[in-house]
């Protein structure tokens, strides 16, 4: 026993000696590795707000995939571009149109003219000219560019034909008359063109710089030219970015910070929350499970509608049960979106949806939904069952076949899908089959019509009711349920081209009513975000349209210390 003990003891001593050697070796190795790591990232430990440098630190949810404004399609690239670029017209802090690179403009029924301001300057000191817009727009529509957002330029004369390769680029209805005057011809009257040009795809691009990048425009910090409040000066892919104030930028009301550092790229919501708690980033979004923590910390929680509407879209193709109006009405009256939002999803910032047009859409004077109110919807099981009987008779069916509900694979969409499955089983005795798919496959099935009902979402591109209003026109490719109605097509045409604002808005009112009475969709919810901002940062804005987060007007308020 004694012998064994001493055996163990001296062996332990030699093990400890080995351990000491090994730890020393590990320590040396760590330093060698740290040296190499230094070459693959920039070390940033400035904290969320650095008053001395007039700088803030933020996180992005992913690496911006495409900073060539003529080709980008995703929210993160839009956020970066909203700080480094400026279109002819921009949105101010109250989401009102405000002059951007153009100091004034005129929109006629056959075209538009933009007068570009003399002080508009690129980040290399050269002036922004009308040629830069002409070049960018022609590049968007060039078939070789293969821009996915090309369609948003289709109101310009010959745009669609150029994009399809039927006409040469030179035939596009845009030309720089002088360096400072841009002339645009329309394919059809486009009274909302001022709102369109604020969109990313309409941003300028300077030909000589673009050519000098040899097809790598937007790939690196040095491969970008900016005309917005900030310049991208450092970019370590996947790791970090630095946006510095653009010394040549003309508007003293924007770009108030000297530096914005994107030190973290992760879409892990908890990681973002931890970074915020540790004082490393200035703002972060909060999901429902995080709200108790946020309350404990006594943070001031802000809420905002992110602009996106979610809805059940029916398949209106003829061979589907969902083509039957009474069937759709039965489904409509057997549900209540407030139950979905308040009792099932329980996301505090979400809003039960009532209409195709979200609450933040503007009407003539005030909110569209105040000017064109819909009758209040409430659950009515009796009515729902009557409609279902009618549908049964019309379709000549004893029993309804299982209804395919196509949905995404996120936990939230699965939760909602299971709720509808249970609801329609209980209220109408219908069987719903959930078909959960990854994003790309859901889109493929939506496009080919392989569903009865799909849980779909739509976010706005520009600040006009038409961004939702034209969704169910028979020619709209996003109308994946193939809803077809002459009345709808006529209303959308009016909404697109009518120059009298009152008549145009009335058309949107009628579209809303038609969607409702024809039960083209069942609105589910309007998505919102809860978020928390460092109290020292003022002027930070989240937007429903345009960049989701906007630091262009943000500044540090030192009195908050």
């Amino acid at each position, binding site marked *: 026993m004694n012998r064994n003990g*001493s055996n*163990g003891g*001296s*062996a*332990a001593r030699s*093990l400890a000696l*080995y*351990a000491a050697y*090994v730890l020393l070796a*590990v320590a040396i*190795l*760590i*330093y060698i*590795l740290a040296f*190499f*790591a*230094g070459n*693959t*990232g*920039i*070390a940033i*430990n400035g904290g969320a707000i650095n008053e001395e440098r007039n700088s803030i630190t933020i*996180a992005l949810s992913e*690496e911006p*995939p495409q900073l*060539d404004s003529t080709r980008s399609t995703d929210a993160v690239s839009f956020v970066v571009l909203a700080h480094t670029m400026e279109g002819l017209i921009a949105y101010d802090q109250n989401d009102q149109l405000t002059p951007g690179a153009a100091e004034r403009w005129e929109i006629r029924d056959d075209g538009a003219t933009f007068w570009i301001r003399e002080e508009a300057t690129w980040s290399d000191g050269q002036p922004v000219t009308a040629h830069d817009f002409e070049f960018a727009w022609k590049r968007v529509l060039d078939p070789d560019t*293969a*821009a*996915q957002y*090309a*369609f948003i330029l289709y109101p310009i004369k010959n745009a*669609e034909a150029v*994009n*399809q*390769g039927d006409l040469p680029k030179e035939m596009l209805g845009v030309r720089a008359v002088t360096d400072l005057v841009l002339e645009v011809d329309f394919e059809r009257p486009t009274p909302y063109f001022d709102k369109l040009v604020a969109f990313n795809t309409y941003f300028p691009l300077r030909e000589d710089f673009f050519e000098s990048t040899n*097809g*790598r425009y937007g*790939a690196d910090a040095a491969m970008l030219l900016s005309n917005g409040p900030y310049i991208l000066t450092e970019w*370590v*892919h*996947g790791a970090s970015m630095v946006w510095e104030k653009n010394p040549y930028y003309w508007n003293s009301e924007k770009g108030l910070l000297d530096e914005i550092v994107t*030190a*973290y790229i*992760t879409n*892990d919501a*908890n*990681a973002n929350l*931890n*970074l915020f*708690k*540790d004082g*490393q980033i200035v703002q972060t979004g909060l999901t429902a499970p995080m709200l108790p923590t946020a309350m404990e910390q006594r943070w001031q929680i802000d809420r905002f509608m992110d602009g996106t509407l979610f809805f059940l879209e029916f398949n209106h193709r003829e061979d589907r049960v969902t083509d039957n109006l009474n069937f759709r009405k039965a489904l409509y009256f057997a549900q209540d979106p407030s139950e979905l939002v308040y009792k099932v999803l329980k996301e505090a910032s979400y809003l039960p949806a009532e209409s195709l047009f979200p609450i933040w859409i503007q009407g003539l004077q005030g909110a569209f939904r105040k000017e064109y109110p819909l009758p209040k919807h409430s659950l009515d099981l009796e009515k729902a069952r009557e409609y279902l009987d009618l549908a049964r008779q019309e379709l000549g069916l004893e029993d309804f076949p299982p209804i395919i509900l196509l949905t995404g694979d996120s936990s939230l969409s699965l939760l909602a899908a299971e709720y509808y499955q249970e609801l329609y089983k209980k209220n109408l005795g219908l069987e719903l089959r959930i078909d959960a*798919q*990854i*994003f*790309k*496959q859901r*889109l*493929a099935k939506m496009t080919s019509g392989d569903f009865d009902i799909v849980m779909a979402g739509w976010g706005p591109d520009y600040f006009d009711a038409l961004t939702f209003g034209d969704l169910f026109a028979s020619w709209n490719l*996003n109308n994946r349920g193939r809803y077809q109605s002459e009345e709808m097509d006529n209303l959308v045409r009016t909404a697109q081209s009518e120059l009298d604002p009152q008549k145009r808005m009335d058309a949107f009112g009628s579209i809303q009513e038609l969607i409702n009475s024809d039960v083209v969709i069942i609105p589910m919810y309007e998505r919102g975000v809860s978020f928390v901002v460092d109290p020292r940062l003022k002027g930070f804005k989240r937007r429903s349209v345009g960049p989701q987060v906007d630091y262009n007007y943000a500044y540090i308020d030192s009195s908050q210390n």
Partner: protein
Amino acid sequence: MFLFGFKRLLQGVVTVWFIATATFFAMHNVPGDPLLNERAGSEAIKANLESKYGLDQPLSTQYFIYLRNLSRGDFGISFTQENREVNDIIREHFPVSAILGILAIVFAATGGVLFGALTALYRNRLPDYIIMILVILGISVPSFVIAAMSQLMLVGINNMAGSTILPVAGWGTILHMLVPALVLGLGTMAYLTRLMRSSMLEIIGSDYIRTAKSKGVPPPRIFAKHQLRNAILPVVTVLGPSIAAITTGGFVVELVFAIPGLGRYFVQAVQQLDYTVIMGTTVFYGAFLVFMVILVDILYGFIDPRVRLEK
């Protein structure tokens, strides 16, 4: 020895070709269209994209074009990060994963061997029990839980200290690496501890240890020369595949700690059906794994002469 190495290398090339071919056809049979986007494009826009990426060619043609480019080491351009080459993505992000992985494996190996030897030494006594409970935890708790909890702990430590002692996330300095590497290596460390323990115990009862004892060799010498060295062999065997597994499997840790490694691109590419990145990362990781296995085979020959003799 050289012939042996050459043969293994040839086998490796065939394996990589097989991986490349299987991935290519599997990927093209995954439902969904990589070029579809939320905003439905017209037929013209879609045709423009398809011809840009060569997807309008028949599949067999695409396969041969792909093989030809692969033999030149050219993986093409990413579908989602449209102005980055897949080669650039691998070149910029694999070193990050590799550094993190090496550190993790160093932690895992040193910890595994030390703790394993310790548990064997103190078999069925308190240190053994404590370490073995931790080992079971380390093996069974998934890394995203450990990652999230350790990050939360870092926030707590920093808040208590009133300043940032260890950064919560990010990349660039030695301090950024320590906790993520530890979290990443924890599972392997637990596995190696168990392996080392059983291997040590097996050897304690063997004939040559008894012979050494009867010859009067001092116990520390027996422990160091005979026990430890022989027990380490199985650990070295699993080290190769472990290095590959750790270096390629850091997706969760990379995401939680906002580390710009390759694992993130690997997983996101699959979600977004980014064909070129899927192909590039899979083939690259496959080749890396095959290379590590071959390397261990060859190293094994140096450590254990018997392996060489058998060939």
